[in-house]
């Protein structure tokens, strides 16, 4: 355990944790909105992330466009898919008991993941732009440039989303719907359309996360479910109901995962994560900064 005392160890681990945490923020952001506002735990969220990663890969492969520039395209495509999914399928069971929506989104997850496996096979792919290997050195701490870009982009998108939710009319109607469905309807909010919009927004954010994942680490069609579970943990960690909570939860989760796996060995990574989760749920079920409504 000598390496724990090495002066460059902790700064490097904290940087690594924050860098991966940035991606996790984006992974959980769409999930948090859909859960917090629509009260749907979207088990297909990870599948959307996977789709985002693959769309980025194929566009980058065909045109050699910078993956970070492909992000809006992937997000737009997934927005359409998400909108159609909610309007065409999930809207039919929104008021049903919890189990029904869980199973429905799980069915969608199986469908999408296996279709991707069938079409694209289980090959591991990665997007590597020309600057992929470069990094910044701060003292003895190494910061890979793509991961730094991903963190920056994740923070920027989080900020933009917060602005969108508070400063635009659509954002206001989405939040109103999350607070009181009936009142929102009385105020003239088109509920089915706003539901679909919110879900599409969640899928677009998933695509953005997928783009960042594709640019920073290898992926294959089956990555989805592990990200769904992480998104869930992050939402519980930060607390449901606000965008800053996701930011805190995501970064904290990145730190816990990175440091836990280095200190205790990679095998215990998931065990630690879920022990934290269960304890947190039992003692602080609303998360570190949960709120009653989505604000």
């Amino acid at each position, binding site marked *: 355990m000598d390496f724990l005392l090495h002066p460059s160890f902790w700064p490097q681990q904290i940087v690594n944790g924050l860098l991966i945490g940035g991606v996790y923020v984006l992974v959980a952001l769409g999930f948090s909105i859909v*859960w*917090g506002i629509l*009260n749907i*735990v979207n088990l297909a969220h990870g599948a959307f992330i996977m789709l985002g990663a693959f769309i980025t890969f194929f566009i980058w492969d065909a045109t050699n466009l910078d993956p970070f520039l492909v992000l809006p395209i992937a997000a737009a495509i997934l927005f359409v898919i998400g909108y159609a999914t909610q309007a065409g*399928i999930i*809207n*039919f*069971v*929104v*008021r*049903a*008991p*919890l*189990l*029904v929506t*869980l*199973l*429905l989104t*799980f*069915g*969608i*997850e*199986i*469908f*999408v*993941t*296996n*279709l991707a*496996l*069938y079409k694209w096979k289980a090959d591991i792919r990665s997007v590597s732009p020309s600057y992929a290997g470069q990094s910044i050195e701060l003292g003895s701490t190494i910061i890979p440039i793509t991961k730094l870009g991903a963190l920056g982009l994740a923070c920027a998108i989080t900020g933009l989303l917060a602005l969108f939710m508070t400063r635009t009319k659509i954002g206001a109607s989405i939040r109103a719907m999350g607070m009181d469905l009936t009142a929102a309807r009385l105020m003239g909010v088109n*509920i*089915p359309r706003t*539901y679909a919009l919110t879900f599409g927004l969640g899928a677009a954010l998933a695509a953005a996360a997928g783009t960042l994942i594709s640019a920073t680490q290898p992926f294959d069609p089956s990555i989805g*479910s592990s990200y769904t*579970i992480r998104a*869930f*943990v992050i939402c*519980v960690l930060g607390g*449901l*109901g606000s965008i800053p909570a996701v930011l805190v939860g995501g970064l904290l989760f990145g730190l816990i995962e990175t440091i836990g796996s280095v200190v205790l*060995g990679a*095998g*215990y*990574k*998931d*065990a630690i994560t*879920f*022990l934290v*989760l*269960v304890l947190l*749920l*039992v003692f602080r*079920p*609303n998360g570190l900064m949960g709120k*009653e409504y989505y604000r």
Partner: protein
Amino acid sequence: MADTAEPLVRRSSEQESPAGPGAKKRRTTATIVDRVLLICALVSLPIMVLVPLHATGYWMNLLTELFILSILATAWNIIGGYTGYAAFGNVAFFGGGAYVTAELMTRGAWSFIPAMLAGGLAMLLYGAIVGLPVLRLRGHYFAIATLGVAIMTRELTNNLAIFGASQPINLPLKNDPNLFYYVALGLLVVSIIVTYLIARSKLGFGLVAIRENEDAALVMGINTTMYKVVAFALNALLCGLAGGLYAYWHSTIDPPTVFDLTTNVRLIIMAVLGGIGTPLGPVIGAALLTFIQETLWKNFTNLHAVLFGAAIVVVVLLMPRGIVYLVRQKFAWRIFVRNLRQYRV
């Protein structure tokens, strides 16, 4: 949002009288259908007992697996169907039972039946210990906490040396399909009887009361914590027994197979497909889902998983309350249309 969690099963306002526990001696369509189902089950039991005389290896395997899945779905029904708590971590008990049985049989040189029973009892205890804190949560939070317990259990098994540290454990080989078939069938019958007994007892009424309105149940003097923990532990016991049987039947177990998280969801889909909160629903659902899966597998080997996902979506949309509720009403195509409209936003 923790306190806005909805009950799993909506209060039955329109068509049917409440399932099992609430059924009065009125001869509604529902009670008649339930009785017909029970008679069907009783008739099919001797047929099932005689199957091994004629069946091929394929059918023996398929039926044994079907029985094990039915036990799991029936066990889940106690906590998920009657009590209304969406447990997503039952593989923790399935895999735990498998591992305890395997350890006792390899290291302890126990014989199969005592080892399986010990596995079940160990899971009863584990379920009670885990359930006590976790059952304080409701709705989605309970679901994810149980999922967390399952993943944690898998990871601990994966890493601890006493459980073989991710190396597969080999149990003594036993090439006797009849033994596994009959033990599986016996366990299934026991779990269905347990469900019937629960449904007709004070415990069952209490559980349904908790499902419909937990706060009201508490006010009415039900010790909700104890009732929930008992239901959860019974569920864990049955899962553990099934796991022990599975371990000896497969003779090789490792964490990824016995703690497979998709099994969790599969068995819940079985229960929902059949009809949750009914004693025989999960078994019917298990049979139907296995049939669908086998058919898809035979006819569309490459695409079977894709079609399976699509099948789940269709089933959930058209009959969110399962087959038992469907046949309880007079069958008509417009029931599907009504189901589709029922929960629309």
